[in-house]
């Protein structure tokens, strides 16, 4: 138990950040207010850097968690990608009001500033993801998933002072509340099936059900499917993906990038934990049947439908933001293959891919956030035409991130896809991997457009009026992202080893657990006989 408190220190650091930022955001001095994003970034980095020191092997050994080590990897990665996201949000909130205050046209009124609140919500949402890492019961998982989502609804509404953002926020919120209701009902059924809300105990109960009745009982299967469908909202997967394009279009680009990474990371981690209570075939001991067939079928369909709808949807778009939104749906589809494949290449691949996707997607959105036309965001594909003449660095960032999203070999996105696809093939889901391959081919249709348009074509008349945004930080985030896309593949092995180490304890524990029930099985039949004889 005490280890769990140690693991909470990064979250505590982030919470101190929340308090500090909320006070700074209301300060009368403009310098304090403008230091809010900087303070946010400092606390994000502090939490990420503290993590490796807190997750010592002895503590991870002693912690009673389903995946004791996952936080060691996850908190660091989410922390550093969030730094890029926070850089993109600089200069986004209160820009007009702060300019008025600076020019002396308006006096400072604490009721009118939102910057502090925006970054509080930012930190709280990241804190939610960190909390999921140490979730060991359904209550904790539910609260952490909600802590990730609730702040994002407000962030969308605040992100820009337009009607579109408010409509997007309401849409996102209502569908999100519905999805929460769905996975909550799934949790209730899982509790009904097992009689416990603790994930590690649930795993034992499911293992016992498999050993005694030859399979997980119906209530458990239905509960798991309903929970997965609800959590699918967070990762923007098939039955729950319909909000994505509208919400990403309505929110400011920086917030769209946030929505594409933070809730997705939370959703995938939640799904890994939930599926981990049932275990995968081959990895969970000799005689285990792995995930029950209906659940594999559900995930299979989610994966196939999600990536197809995402890629076909993206082909039809003329707005870059909607295109990237659909591409976010498609990437979720690829990652679900990793969930089906299970521990080893599958789950490690998902963790790896989340990092890769976070970086390349952030870089792509940073281009949109870093440029503007008459104080408005650029949105359509035509705006990007011939970008290299006026903004060569942004054109290159766009091309690199689109190439990486497509999965061009030496780049980061390719490495991520490789692990997941190989994981799928290894576990015998070859048709699904073929569908994914075909989808990658479809996605070339729009990614090549995004690569070619800024670099090769001539600027359109409307592209001439594009200027760089006031703040240079979003563009810096884009450049950092592009550099990481090129440099990180060199360190792929190290990063993959890190994902492997973060799932290690989980695998061993699972195998040991099921192995033990298998060993008990032959001894069991004589026991009732003895009992009846007595």
């Amino acid at each position, binding site marked *: 138990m005490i280890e769990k408190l140690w693991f909470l220190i990064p979250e505590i650091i982030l919470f101190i950040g929340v308090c500090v930022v909320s006070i700074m955001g209301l300060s009368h001095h403009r310098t304090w207010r403008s230091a809010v994003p900087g303070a946010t970034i400092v606390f994000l980095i502090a939490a990420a850097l503290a993590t490796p020191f807190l997750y010592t092997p002895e503590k991870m050994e002693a912690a009673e968690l389903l995946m004791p080590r996952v936080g060691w990897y996850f908190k660091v990665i989410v922390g550093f990608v969030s730094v890029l996201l926070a850089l993109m949000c600089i200069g986004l909130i209160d820009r007009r009001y702060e300019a008025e205050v600076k020019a002396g046209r308006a006096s400072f009124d604490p009721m009118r500033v939102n910057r502090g609140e925006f970054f509080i919500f930012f930190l709280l949402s990241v804190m939610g993801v960190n909390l999921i890492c140490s979730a060991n019961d359904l209550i904790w998982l539910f609260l952490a998933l909600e802590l990730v989502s609730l702040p994002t609804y407000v962030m969308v*509404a605040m992100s820009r002072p337009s009607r579109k953002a*408010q409509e997007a*926020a309401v849409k996102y919120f209502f569908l999100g*509340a*519905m999805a929460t*209701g*769905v996975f*909550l009902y799934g949790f*209730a059924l899982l509790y009904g099936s097992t009689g416990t809300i603790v994930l590690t105990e649930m795993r034992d109960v499911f293992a016992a059900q498999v050993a005694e009745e030859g399979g997980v009982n119906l209530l458990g299967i239905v509960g798991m499917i309903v929970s997965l469908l609800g959590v699918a909202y967070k990762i923007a997967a098939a039955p729950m993906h319909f909000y994505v394009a*509208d919400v990403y279009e309505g929110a400011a680009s920086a917030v769209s990038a946030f929505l594409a990474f933070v809730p997705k990371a939370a959703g995938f981690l939640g799904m890994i934990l939930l599926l981990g209570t049932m275990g995968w075939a081959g990895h969970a001991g000799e005689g285990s049947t792995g995930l029950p067939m209906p659940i594999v079928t559900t995930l299979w369909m989610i994966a196939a439908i999600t990536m197809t709808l995402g890629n076909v949807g993206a082909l039809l778009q003329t707005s870059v933001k909607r295109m990237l939104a659909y591409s976010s749906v498609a990437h979720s589809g690829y990652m679900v293959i990793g969930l089906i494949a299970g521990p080893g290449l599958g789950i490690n691949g998902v963790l790896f891919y989340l990092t890769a996707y976070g970086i390349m997607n952030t870089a792509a959105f940073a281009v949109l956030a870093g440029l503007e036309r008459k104080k408005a965001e650029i949105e359509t594909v035509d705006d990007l035409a011939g970008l290299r003449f006026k903004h060569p660095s942004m054109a290159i960032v766009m091309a690199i991130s689109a190439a990486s999203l497509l999965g061009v070999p030496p780049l980061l996105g390719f490495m991520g896809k490789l692990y997941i696809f190989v994981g799928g093939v290894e576990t015998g889901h070859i048709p699904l991997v073929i569908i994914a391959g075909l989808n990658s081919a479809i996605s070339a249709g729009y990614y090549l457009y995004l690569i070619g348009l800024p670099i090769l074509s001539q600027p359109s008349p409307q592209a001439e009026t594009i200027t760089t945004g006031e703040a240079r930080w979003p563009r810096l985030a884009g450049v950092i992202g592009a550099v990481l896309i090129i440099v990180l593949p060199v360190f792929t092995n190290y990063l993959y080893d890190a994902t492997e180490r973060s799932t290690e304890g989980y695998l061993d524990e699972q195998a040991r657990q099921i192995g033990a029930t298998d060993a008990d099985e032959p001894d069991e039949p004589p026991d009732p006989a003895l009992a009846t004889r007595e």
Partner: protein
Amino acid sequence: MMTADSLHLTMATLEPFSSLELGHFILTSAILFAIGIIGFLTRRNMIVMFLCTELMFQAAAIAMIAFGRFHMDLSGQVFVIFILTVAAAESALALALVVLLFRRKETLNAEAWTELRE
């Protein structure tokens, strides 16, 4: 488990309710959940839509309590307290957002908002 036993006794003494078992409660919660999700998908008034999501939350809460009683385990009831808390927080947020929209256009009809389209 003292309370659970006494609850059982009261149940037994009340003749008409003595045949209540887990299935009835789960059926109730399933019906509530179905009403919630169908209402959410068919109604267009934003307040009613939000009430439908609340109905789904309460369906989950009823199922939690029923299963908790069935397994003689208190964690289901603990979960319900958290569900209620989050539902309250969510309704505060929902009303804030709805008021925000209502100030722009004086209607609660979700279909009046169509700026985000393909």
